[in-house]
């Protein structure tokens, strides 16, 4: 099982694909998502989002605010801008 991840900004889809682990920082603190996570909706603060792909590579993005939603192994990260 893998997570289906999409990182999108208003002007473009920054990254999308399969991943085994996603971590991001919400207003409550750091948060990690593994396959099978319960449906969740979180508000992100400025910080790093890291996505560990199924092929073992890790992608790091710096986001400026945004949202993270998880449902049925589908993770979407919405952010205003990606640094």
């Amino acid at each position, binding site marked *: 099982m893998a997570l289906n991840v999409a990182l999108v900004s208003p002007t473009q889809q920054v990254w999308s694909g399969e991943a085994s682990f996603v971590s991001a920082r919400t207003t409550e603190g750091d948060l990690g998502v593994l396959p099978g996570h*319960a*449906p969740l909706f*979180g508000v992100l603060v400025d910080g790093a989002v890291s996505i560990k792909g199924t092929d073992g590579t890790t992608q790091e993005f710096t986001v400026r605010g945004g949202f993270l939603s998880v449902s049925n192994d589908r993770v979407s990260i919405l952010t205003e801008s990606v640094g």
Partner: protein
Amino acid sequence: MGAQLRVYRRRMRSVKATKKITKAMELISASRIVKAQQRVTASTPYANELTRAVSAVATYSSTNHPLTTPHENPRRAAILIISADRGMAGAYSTNAIKEGERLAALLRERGLQVSNFLVGRKAVNYYKFRNREMAGTWTGFSDNPTYENAKEVADSLLSAFLSDSTDSNGVDEIHIIFTQFKSMLTQEATAKRMIPLEVVESSAPVPTGLLPMYEFEPNAGEVLNALLPRYIEARIFNAMLQSAASEHAARRRAMKSATDNAEDLIKSLTRLANAARQAEITQEISEIVGGADALASASAGSE
């Protein structure tokens, strides 16, 4: 060269010069439509994800947020009209402005006061000429809007919404008028209510019955507070991008018909000029023949 012929030639030159300009504008617009369309497509994933998120939150939280629940006794509504900065686009701006008038009449019937927020020089000039009050105006980016532009507009609309409607600039409802880009050939001025939310509005059908029970972090109210301004921004941004694409398409069509008309005009002027030239030649011949005849008969009489 006769006077008639000279007039025709002068008119043909001027029409030809105009045709060159309209042809160039047509080609420029044609190339920009594609870019504008790509920007609309690029912004869709974000808009779709946000719509999903907002529908999920709105459905699964019982919080009564002012952005989702209609005001019990609305007094004032805001209309945001997105028009063009430049003309030469046929009825593009006029259609949007007319749609605005229609919506304003509808709102007044409901007993609401209307405050106008205008994007694009054409709408601003229309309202300025009629000495109407404008709550906010933005110009200079109609054919290539950025997210920052949309944010600016959204900020001012939201602050009007969040201030009390009993004072002069607060509003209870926000409507938007933009030109939907349906295809290269069809664009339609559309009015939509933005606040209170009509959440069921997205190109992708919202999955029914599949929306999961979400955990909210930190809590549903906070999430809505953070989410809805972004949602409004994304809606306005999408509307602006679609309007920009529509503007280019409308301009291309208007310039194409202008070029065609110029061609027809040149054709008929060429015919007229040819006829005038021929008439001139005929007249000269008959004058020469007549002159020769007169000379011949004069010299015949003297002998």
